[in-house]
């Protein structure tokens, strides 16, 4: 149970940024996982090279990713937003553009750090909780994920800017009618999503072994969680992440570890057919 929850929490963390980018800015970002890996690798070099602790690394990676993603949105994605006649066109264009971006980022990462695996040891102290053994670093990462998720949830539901973002997620045209600057809100959401994925990268780097071409794995997981939770729905992403984590752990334990990924996709496809708008209904709660 507990390993399943921890895994699910990590999925939720990885997916939160994408649900903002796709749900609000309507950009289906296929290069999402590459940015996660980039942040994780940066954390590795900060820690092993300069001795900067990963938790301190959050303070560097998150603002940097925010600025970078804001620039990407303004420079590369705004032309697509302008050109798109409707939401479908923007989705297709953004899939293609970010797919190109995926290769660029992955290629850069390869040139810079090569293809080998990286991992470091930070607070890997085993703890025994409720009969299962869990490493301290995983727990800390999960704790931070929960904190970030809660902060985001309250920011979205309790602040004016959060309200604007939720309005854009539901209906960009109507949001414009009530004097919300849709483009600014979208850029903000995209950049915030980028900051979140950097945070996720830093946190998973604490306990996962990574290499430069693993981004796609994270993108796929995030995509599944986002669609299952309902696009733009933070709580949905959290619950879907947990469901997925538990299901994977259960399949690995009870049926066959080799089938976890297959179970993953099967679950996803069933949800997609049964409730295409996600397990937890409408957009942006």
């Amino acid at each position, binding site marked *: 149970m507990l390993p399943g929850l921890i895994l699910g929490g990590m999925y939720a963390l990885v997916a939160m940024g994408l649900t903002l980018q796709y749900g609000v800015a309507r950009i289906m970002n296929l290069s999402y996982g590459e940015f996660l890996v980039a942040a994780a690798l940066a954390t590795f070099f900060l820690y092993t090279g300069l001795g900067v602790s990963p938790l301190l690394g959050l303070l560097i990676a998150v603002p940097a990713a925010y600025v970078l993603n804001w620039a990407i949105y303004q420079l590369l994605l705004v032309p697509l937003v302008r*050109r798109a006649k409707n939401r*479908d066109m923007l989705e297709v264009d953004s899939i293609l553009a970010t797919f*190109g971006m995926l*290769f660029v980022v992955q290629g*850069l990462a390869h*040139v810079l750090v090569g293809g080998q695996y990286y991992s470091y040891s930070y607070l890997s102290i085993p703890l025994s909780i409720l009969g299962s053994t869990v490493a301290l670093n995983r727990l800390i990462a999960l704790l931070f994920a929960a904190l970030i998720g809660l902060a985001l949830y309250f920011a979205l539901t309790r602040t004016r800017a959060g309200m604007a973002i939720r309005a854009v997620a539901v209906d960009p045209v109507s949001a414009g009618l009530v004097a919300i600057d849709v483009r600014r809100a979208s850029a903000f959401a995209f950049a915030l999503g980028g900051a979140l994925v950097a945070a996720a990268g830093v946190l998973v780097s604490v306990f996962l072994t990574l290499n430069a071409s693993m981004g796609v794995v994270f993108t796929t997981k995030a995509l*599944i969680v986002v669609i299952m939770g309902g696009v733009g729905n933070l709580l949905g992403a959290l619950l879907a992440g947990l469901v997925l984590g538990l299901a994977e752990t259960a399949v690995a334990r009870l049926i066959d570890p*080799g089938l976890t*990924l297959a179970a993953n996709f099967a679950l996803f496809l069933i949800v*997609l057919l049964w409730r295409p708008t996600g397990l937890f209904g409408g957009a942006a709660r």
Partner: protein
Amino acid sequence: MRAATAAYGMFGLALSALLAVVPLLVSGYYLALGISVLSYTVLATSWALFSGPTRYISLATAAFFGIGAYTAAILGEKLPWPLVLAVAALIGIAVALVVGLSTLRLSGIYFVIFTFGLTELVRQLVTWYEVNIHGSVGRYIFVDVTQPVIYWYLLALAALVFLAGWLIGRSRLGLALRVIGDDEGVAGHCGIDITRAKLTVFSLSAVFMTVTGAIMAPRWTYIDPAISFNAFTSFQTLIMALFGGATRLFGPLLGVVPLVVLFELLGAHFPNYFSILLGVVFMVIVYLLPQGVAGLFTRGPPRLRTVGIGARLAERIGRVFDRPQASPPPVAAADGEAVPEILATRGLRKAFGGLVAVDNLELSVRKGEILGLIGPNGSGKTTVLNLISGAYRADAGEIRFRGQRIEALKPHRIAQLGVARTFQLVRVLGSMTCVENVIAGLAFRSPAVWGGRAEQMARALVDRVGLGARAGMPADELTYVDQKRLELARALAMQPELLLLDEWLAGLNPAELNDGIALVRSLRNDGLSIVVVEHVMDAIRSLCDRCVVMNAGCKIAQGPPAVVLADREVVRAYLGDADA
């Protein structure tokens, strides 16, 4: 026309013959390049057969390709090679039908992600099967198929794809896909069996992909799931088709040739930077060439071709698969009734969540009358039309058209029985011309019209609604009023017995309103029965034989216009208690 077709045919044959001798002249690197070009030509062209007109972006290419490759790997040593390909084709069809039936109701991003997920699922399952049951991840393929043979098979397959695409482009099926791509709702109301049209072409394109995978398998000697179900195959196919231009038959080819060569060169000369350069190429295509290379030479969407040898041949083939429709018996008057009833509803009910939009509605339309369905905004009028035309399924109650129950039928069946409609928010097929819009109404009704006669009839109808001067103009360039006229022409093309007009007269200026009223009246004089949902009281008074007034989902009055419009309850519903 015939000469041009013959010339193209000769050119195609000559080109095929020329390409067929290539393996005799070159080998090694250049032959491999040729095989690569041909395989992506088949993949991208067959991808565009389905995804081009319907705009359903599929990422399932790798799934079908991989299934083909695995079929070849498993059966390659047990069966003769052509039989292996036939089995692969059958498996491809079977998988495509299952996938198609379950997913084609998803649209937009959900379809994209589903097809992507499907590829991953198949790969995971095959991997698991190979590891746990077969005992090793990979398989060796020892089949005596040489590189030139692979090349020739692919060349033949490419010729078949182009032939299939050429025929589809001239068939009613091709038109059906384009209508679906423009507006799926309209497609149903034009009498198009949406599921069948999409499934047919999706399966056809899947067969080509599967067979390509099977033909390519011996090239590797060793395959494992990561090689054969590589998601990259899907993306590369997609980007090549889009780069070339997916709405035209030869568009993908224009993308395949330069991109295969480019990727080859990049891989050979800049192996370390391949990925970066590839990404840059992708982005350049998206930003600079959204319409593809084909878009540089041609303007606008392709024109419909209904005449010529291709169209006749396609129609001949299509007839084989078409189920003939029995023509319905004439409507007879029941005992004691002067005029027979053409439409009747009983206990009709539709709720959206807690809101009951239509509640226990009884409605009857007599043959040859104009029935006004009126009531304040939100009273459920459009919902009634949607229930009759099959756009919504009723929660309870029955609808009889010419005595036959239709409440459970799909829109295309209802349309073929003789119910046509217009939409409250006008819905024309924007990428097609006026004549093509009307042909969409002719080509799928029962009995269907196609070829030169369809063109003539469409022109006559376009003339009748006063659009003769704009017959060749794309529908999305028409003004709002002209779009309404066009929508009516498309509905009339269905040769309906019952016509549903949803606020067709709204938004017209006084002169246009008079023309519009005269036009609707002339339709009744032709024997049509018409239900009009309308707010323009002048039109209601001068047109309608009877009115049914709805409020909050219920019928509150019915009778001649002058009587019901003076009814206290009706006045209260429209204007409130103070005026009643």
